[in-house]
């Protein structure tokens, strides 16, 4: 009958979810279904036990289970969205109820129905106790409500002086290390063995005056050196010198084939003068 009535209620006209009245229980036993106001299934159970004025120490778990299941049933009838944990609790309580009603089976690995009930009772009592303490705490004198601290505290002005810890040893060590590093960084670049361009030009100019015809550049290479590094350097310098002389109009260069020998010949003095 309840069911029919409730279904007739237009959901949108529900002024308040507190409509779920249990008409078959007395006024003080009536649980107001206010799912929003509850803080989870334990809270519902605790509230139920308190509205029923059940002493949790002697709580009749079966009564509590029955009421919780009714509460959940009602909430569903009102089509209130019940969070999953309410339903899990309902399932667990239904299981507990059946365990309590059925003769206990001997099972070493499982908690007995009594132990399960005791565990639930413990949790409810613990929550109830902490809730009482919370109320007590909030009823204490509170700063900013019942007592006030200095409104205009005078701040302590802290002036920080920095002292630096450094020993003479640290100082000398730093200096020495710096010096060591400085010495290591003092790189001496060894004079590289080179046959300078100036030298090459000088040599080439001199020798070109002696050679009248085309002459292989190789012929002008200094013969008094045997350091391969200097030979390489001399080759490069002699080649550059030949280019330099050709550029200045003092020599002609000819190469007949790719990678072939370079032939060089001094220009006639008159030619040079003509050009001027």
């Amino acid at each position: 009958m309840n069911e029919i009535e409730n279904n007739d209620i237009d959901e949108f006209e529900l002024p308040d979810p507190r409509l779920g009245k249990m008409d078959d229980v007395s006024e003080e036993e009536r649980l107001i279904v206010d799912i929003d106001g509850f803080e989870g299934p334990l809270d519902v159970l605790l509230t139920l036990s308190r509205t029923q004025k059940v002493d949790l120490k002697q709580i009749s778990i079966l009564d509590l289970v029955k009421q919780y299941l009714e509460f959940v049933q009602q909430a569903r009838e009102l089509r209130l969205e019940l969070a999953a944990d309410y339903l899990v609790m309902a399932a667990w309580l239904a299981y507990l109820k059946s365990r309590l009603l059925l003769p206990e089976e001997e099972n070493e690995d499982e908690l007995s129905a009594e132990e399960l009930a005791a565990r639930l009772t413990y949790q409810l009592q613990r929550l109830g106790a902490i809730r009482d303490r919370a109320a007590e705490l909030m009823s204490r004198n509170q700063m900013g409500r019942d007592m006030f601290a200095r409104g205009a505290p005078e701040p302590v002005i802290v002036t920080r002086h920095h002292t630096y810890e450094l020993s003479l040893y640290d100082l000398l060590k730093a200096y020495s290390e710096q010096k060591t590093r400085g010495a290591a960084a003092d790189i001496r670049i060894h004079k590289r063995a080179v046959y300078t361009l100036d030298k090459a030009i000088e040599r080439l100019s001199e020798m070109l005056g002696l050679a009248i015809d085309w002459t292989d550049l190789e012929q002008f290479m200094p013969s008094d050196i045997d350091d391969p590094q200097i030979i390489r350097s001399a080759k490069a310098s002699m080649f550059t010198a030949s280019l330099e002389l050709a550029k200045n109009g003092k020599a002609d260069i000819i190469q007949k084939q790719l990678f072939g020998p370079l032939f060089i010949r001094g220009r006639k003095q008159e030619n040079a003068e003509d050009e001027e």
Partner: protein
Amino acid sequence: MEVHEQMRICEALLFASNRPLSSIALAEQLPEGSDADSILKALQEKYADAGVNLVEVAGKWMFQTAFDLAFLLRKEEEKERKLSRAAIETLAIIAYHQPITRAEIEEVRGVGVSKGTLDVLMEATWIKPLGRRRTPGRPMTYGTTEDFLVHFGLNSVKDLPGLAELKAAGFLENVNTSRLNLLSDDKPEEEQPDLPMDDDESSSEEQVIS
């Protein structure tokens, strides 16, 4: 230095601060050999009947207005913090159980703790993280702050109302979160397998000192 002058120094320092000061900190400002505690007692007596009182709170000392004059001042600043029921309950659980993890708070309340709840309490500077539990997952633990003690006029968390009764009833024993719901059939003796909790006592001690 005579006692009167030492009292003046403590008076000035305590008046200038809106936070409690430890007798050790005060002693530092007094001449060597001064008995800061007796000076503070004398000062407390001097102000016992005044509009401001010297109170011992959070293990330290501070001046605050007399309780009976609160009605005058409430008009001045009407900004009482309105905490949700969830926040108040969570605060109480943290205060009595600290250090406690979020999962344990949820276990006691039988419902999830929204992040906002801890945030509100943290913003009010009433709770603070106390470090991570040395258990798998290394969950963060929470505890109350000095501000919490000052706000509620407590000298230490040991002075929380009804603490002894809760302890005697076994309600402050380690909260078991090893099972996710009541359906688990763990034997009770197996309920606390892996929680080498930081010692409750020592953490209370810490708070008093800090």
